[in-house]
């Protein structure tokens, strides 16, 4: 809060629901499941300008999946051949981590969002229940937020069209409408379990891996200012980036 003196950070209450709905564009989940918190940044007039939901122990009830973006090198000195390319490997790497989700902010409230995220990173240390050291289980000491990947002119994800569509022929938006966020856990069962070489994907699908939708760029900047970084994880449906940091003591600054 030190660099945003004119904003107040606090937990949401039932009185905040109408303002939250306006900010999010939909009715917020309320009341929250045990262990979760809805945090707010309010401006000098007390109006909420940024919000997020803090959710510890990600993927410990139902499995969550992400692609890890790695690298494969094929080299042969005799042929003067040295080719490297990204690879995708489906996994549950962030299981046990604290997720920041349902993030929303008012126009020009980037600084408030950054302050709110810093606050949330510090709060994550209090809410996480898994205290295993990160050398044993890397997930629980991580705080992360997912950003949506870009869509093409028709509203479809080029990444989904290049990869997911070959493994689930249904409409992803219809599945999401029906199952909520859990649809990604369901669809992961249909996706490739082995390493996928990205050169097998169309160029436009390769190009968006780890790229946030234009509408999420301000949010991405706010998260990065708070210390979250892209660490080679992407969403499985649209390859949107996962921004991550470690919730080390003092991370909130």
């Amino acid at each position: 809060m030190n660099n945003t003196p004119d904003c107040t950070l606090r937990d949401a209450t039932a009185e905040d629901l109408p303002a939250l709905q306006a900010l999010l564009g939909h009715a917020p989940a309320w009341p929250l499941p045990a262990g979760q918190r809805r945090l707010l940044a309010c401006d000098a007039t007390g109006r909420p300008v940024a919000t997020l939901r803090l959710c510890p122990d990600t993927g410990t009830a139902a499995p969550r999946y992400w692609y890890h973006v790695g690298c494969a090198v094929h080299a042969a000195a005799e042929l003067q051949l040295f080719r490297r390319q990204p690879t995708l490997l489906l996994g549950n790497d962030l299981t046990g981590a604290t997720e920041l989700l349902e993030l929303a902010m008012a126009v020009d409230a980037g600084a408030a969002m950054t302050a709110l995220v810093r606050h949330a990173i510090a709060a994550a240390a209090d809410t996480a229940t898994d205290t295993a050291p990160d050398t044993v289980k890397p997930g629980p000491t991580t705080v992360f937020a997912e950003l949506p990947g870009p869509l093409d002119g028709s509203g479809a994800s080029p990444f989904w069209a290049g990869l997911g569509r070959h493994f689930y022929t249904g409409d992803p938006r219809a599945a999401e409408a029906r199952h909520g966020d859990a649809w990604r856990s369901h669809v992961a069962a249909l996706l490739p379990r082995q390493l996928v070489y990205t050169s097998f994907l169309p160029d436009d699908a390769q190009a968006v891996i780890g790229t946030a939708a234009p509408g999420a760029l301000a949010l991405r900047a706010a998260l990065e200012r708070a210390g979250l970084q892209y660490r080679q994880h992407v969403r499985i449906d649209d390859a949107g980036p996962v921004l991550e940091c470690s919730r080390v003591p003092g991370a909130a600054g």
Partner: protein
Amino acid sequence: MNPEDLLLRASTPADLDALERMAAASAIGITTLPANRALLADRLARSAQAFSSADDASGEEIYLFVLEDTRSGQVVGTSGIAASAGFADRFYSYRNEMVVHASAALGASNRIHTLHLCHDLTGHTLLTSFYIDPAYEQSLAPQLLSRGRLLFIAEFAERFSDRIAAESPGLADETGRCPFWDAVGRRFFGMDYPSAETLTGGRNKAYIAELMPQSPIYVPLLPDEAQWAIGQLHPVAELPFSILLDEGFDAETYVDIFDGGPTVDARVALLRTVAGSRRWSRAGAATAVHDSPWQLVANTRRGEFRVVLSRASLDRAALALDERSSHQLHSAPGEPLRAAPLQADTGSRA
């Protein structure tokens, strides 16, 4: 053409001109018959050594056979055997596997075709280098050319594996465009198929296979044209391929890692020609036997191996050969012969 004019025999270094002519005429994909005189001469020398060596087999041997029309004295076809695929290294193939991905919540269940890079066929005996002059395709000549090799394997089984495989060229055009390669290999090599062929010709494929993706390939991610090419034959290979299928080879499991052509495999003992073959002693008197069914008849000399098509007559103990076949085989009375019926049912007339 009279089938009795045809002779399949062990090649000799003197067959170099004929082999070079056939290598030039054969399609892209017959990697074991390089259009390179020096490589072919080396191949013939290795083959001559394999046929005549007094040593026990090491697995390194290659055997090249030529088909001769004894009317004209012309060599009209060739075929080969590599004793042990990937000798001293590895033999790479893609193995077809199906995985079923299912989600009850989404009501979806998909069979996903995947290709797994494998070494399953390493050490199998490999049939290679089949080429026949087109003028002889519509005759019994291809049968003799392909299956005569199997009599050699049956006779000298200790020099071969009890498992056998054969590669067939996949889809590619004259310009070297190869749908499977362009969708798979090219992404890892950055060169066209003929260039990769040249790099591997005359040496073990393992050298280049190590550059291929080690994880399974998800076939649905390949372009349609490449998907269709998996397990598809180059048209030039239809004839030898059909002979192998008739022998009992299985074409479902493996494909070539470069062009996606089918690689067939089998147990040697279950092949029709091998299972149907036996050793005979030769009846002393050669008689005219014009109405007997066709037999593939081989002598049993490794260094000077010869096979002919003959209407030999068989009784319980001995095989009677006409004088011409006997002469072609360089067979002496009392010398054992190995024969297999040309048709599956020995009772039928060819």
